[in-house]
């Protein structure tokens, strides 16, 4: 009986808590939710990213006193990379702050797919920087999705361009064998359509090979690779899967310099566990690479010298940390853009959506923000929710990432028809209205 009482009491406390979840809030604050992961199989990659995001918001608050005086209120929620848990986090956080969530970064392609369905209803834009649905760059159908800086189709195209350049032109790819080792989820499957298209165009043999979540068991895949002897292996992994792939490649003797990872397979936690085995491994870059730039000086001055940073200062130049900074900066600048139209006050998701769609970062502005050398100028529009399609390739020299290529632009002659077809199919399947971008200012 005592037990029952305790259980009932516990249930009552829980129920009370569920209904009274939000307390008093300060009025001049912009709420931004953080769907991140610091636990689980993807934590090694999730942690530096989450640190970068948190530090940048803190920096804006410390250095500038917020965005034009509107303080950023940031709250994290650990999704563990699981879709249902991510949706729960989103539902929990979306209504907080005086105006609700400004935008959401799902940091998982699976969660992005789920939130894509919710965004138009809740009127909260989804920024999936460098991930998510490739066709969602078409703003006429995907009004609320912003795969800023690049989609997986762009990434795959940039890698293929780099390979073609090394081989001496796309026509030299004829008869070559390309294998894609991918995380068996929407994330890993995204590039397949583009690579199949490129294979058809240039006559190379393309084989996708899935690896099941979380990707620690890949012996069978790499045995197949050893038998097939492909010319190139593309890696679309995340978390522990990346380092496992590189270790397996070393074990079967596949040359690492013929291995190309996507930008989510090209950070320090991916190569360090493989130690010497990772030397020579290539990865695409989501524009920025590792290293310290203008913004890092501010981070040191305003956060780390005062002991307010969440990471260690030595880690602030890492690839994924920098990506967190870029991600947060694009969000903050979108809010700033929206403030020009709607006023310097906390904005709703719908107003911020306008801000993202009209985001225009010139080289001068990027320099001012301390991101010179990390990003190229970008301009988002109704037609193009990606903003830019540029990327480079980097190589791990055993101790650090070295940029080994010039800038590439993914080929819109190939991508655009695919994006249009996929977006059209989505709109038809879901019976969605299509916006006419020529009528938008």
């Amino acid at each position: 009986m005592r037990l029952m009482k305790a259980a009932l009491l516990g249930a009552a406390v829980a129920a009370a808590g569920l209904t009274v979840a939000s307390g008093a809030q300060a009025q001049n604050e912009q709420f931004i939710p953080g769907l991140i992961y610091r636990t689980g199989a993807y934590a090694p990659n999730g942690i530096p990213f989450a640190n970068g995001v948190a530090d940048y918001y803190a920096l804006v608050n410390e250095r500038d006193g917020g965005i034009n005086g509107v303080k950023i209120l940031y709250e994290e929620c650990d999704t563990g990379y699981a879709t249902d848990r991510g949706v729960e986090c989103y539902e929990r956080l979306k209504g907080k702050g005086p105006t609700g969530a400004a935008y959401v970064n799902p940091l998982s392609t699976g969660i992005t797919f789920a939130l894509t369905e919710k965004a138009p209803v809740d009127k909260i834009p989804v920024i999936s920087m460098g991930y998510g649905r490739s066709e969602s760059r078409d703003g006429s159908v995907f009004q609320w999705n912003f795969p800023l800086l690049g989609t997986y189709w762009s990434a795959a195209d940039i890698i293929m361009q780099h390979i073609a350049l090394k081989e001496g032109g796309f026509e030299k790819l004829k008869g070559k064998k390309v294998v894609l080792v991918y995380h068996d989820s929407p994330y890993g499957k995204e590039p397949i359509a583009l690579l199949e298209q490129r294979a058809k165009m240039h006559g190379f043999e393309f084989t996708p090979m899935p690896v099941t979540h979380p990707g620690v068991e890949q012996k069978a895949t790499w045995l197949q690779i050893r038998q097939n002897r492909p010319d190139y292996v593309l890696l679309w992994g995340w978390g522990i899967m990346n380092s496992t792939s590189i270790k397996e490649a070393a074990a079967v003797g596949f040359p690492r310099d013929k291995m190309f990872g996507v930008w989510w397979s090209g950070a320090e936690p991916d190569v360090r566990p493989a130690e010497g085995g990772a030397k020579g491994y290539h990865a695409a870059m989501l524009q920025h690479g590792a290293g310290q730039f203008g913004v890092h000086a501010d981070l040191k001055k305003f956060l780390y010298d005062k002991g307010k940073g969440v990471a260690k200062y030595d880690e602030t130049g890492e690839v994924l940390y920098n990506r967190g900074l870029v991600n947060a900066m694009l969000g903050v600048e979108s809010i700033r853009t929206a403030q020009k139209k709607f006023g310097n006050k906390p904005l709703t998701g719908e107003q911020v959506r306008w801000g993202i769609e009209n985001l225009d970062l010139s080289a001068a502005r990027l320099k001012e923000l301390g991101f010179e050398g990390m990003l190229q100028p970008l301009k988002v529009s109704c037609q193009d929710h990606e903003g830019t399609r540029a990327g480079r390739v980097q190589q791990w020299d055993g101790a650090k990432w070295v940029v080994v290529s010039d800038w590439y632009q993914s080929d819109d002659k190939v991508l655009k028809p695919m994006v249009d077809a996929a977006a059209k199919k989505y709109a038809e399947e879901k019976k969605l209205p299509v916006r006419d971008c020529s009528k938008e200012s």
Partner: protein
Amino acid sequence: MLYREAGQFKTTYGADQQIFPILQDRIFVLAVIAAALLVVPLFASQYLYTEILIPFLILSLAAIGLNILVGYCGQVSLGTGGFMAVGAYAAYNLWLRVPEANNLIVVFLFGGLMSAAVGILFGIPSLRIKGFYLAVATLASQFFLDWLFARVKWLTNYTPSGSVAVGDTSAFGWKIDTPMERYLFILAFVVVATVVAKNLVRGHIGRSWMAIRDMDIAAEIIGFRPLRTKLTAFAVSSFFIGIAGAMWAFLRLGAWEPLAFDINRSFQILFMVIIGGLGSLLGSFLGAAFIVLTPIVLNQLPGWFGVKMSTALLSHLEFMVFGAMIVFFLIVEPHGLARLWAIAKEKLRLWPFPH
């Protein structure tokens, strides 16, 4: 004092055989349903609907399905996630390819029926293999179905990522869109399904399942045909699980990939059945509530009390406390939460004058 059946005389067989022979039980259950139907919509927030009530109800239905198979018929299954996926993808393909069938009730029943058919198929080996060996065989079905939905492109309508999405859901012209509408629709479905399940398990079919569960050779000798009995259990169980899968996909997720129905889902529902109570429909609900709510509550509890904690520590604590709670409940009452409820009722009968 209040909970006592003294003075409630049964004068017909019908009255004696009803689902809740005690008046107080009847009133209580009807009050719960009425509250869920009428009171909840008055105050519930969107978060309460989409993250607490809807997952709870759908997974309760799946747990009822699994409880029929494991709790009533004694056939251990680890393929629940796979059967949910069959329901979800069958429903999706009907919804996509037959526009005339754009009615959630039709779509869900179709998902359930397809799942039942697949369940029968994978139930056939149960005649020869028992216990843990059967669990391993159903595990194979889980992996096969996972593979099927990830690889056969037609089933996912050739989407590049393998993730499918649904929209424009309605039933008989009623557009089921807002969280409240979804909740009410699911509630109605679950209530009807529970009544059906209750009547099945207390009728001759359910008795034949329990006979097989308790001793299959004895059951065969007294005249139950093991193959038919076991296969009906697989069919009915998969039917409910399939409907739950279709609901999970259509009304909870909206867009999903095969990963939503992976092996972890199977384990989750099996744990609901074990913690809630094998062979108890009430246990299915209690187990689902425990498994769905506890992690969410644990994750938010420090925040409600104003305790600031790092996100990582919070997640780790959630895992540890949740695990400890499962161990605690299984030690205190190995027969599950439903048994605790039954003990409470027994005590209530004697209250306030226990011997």
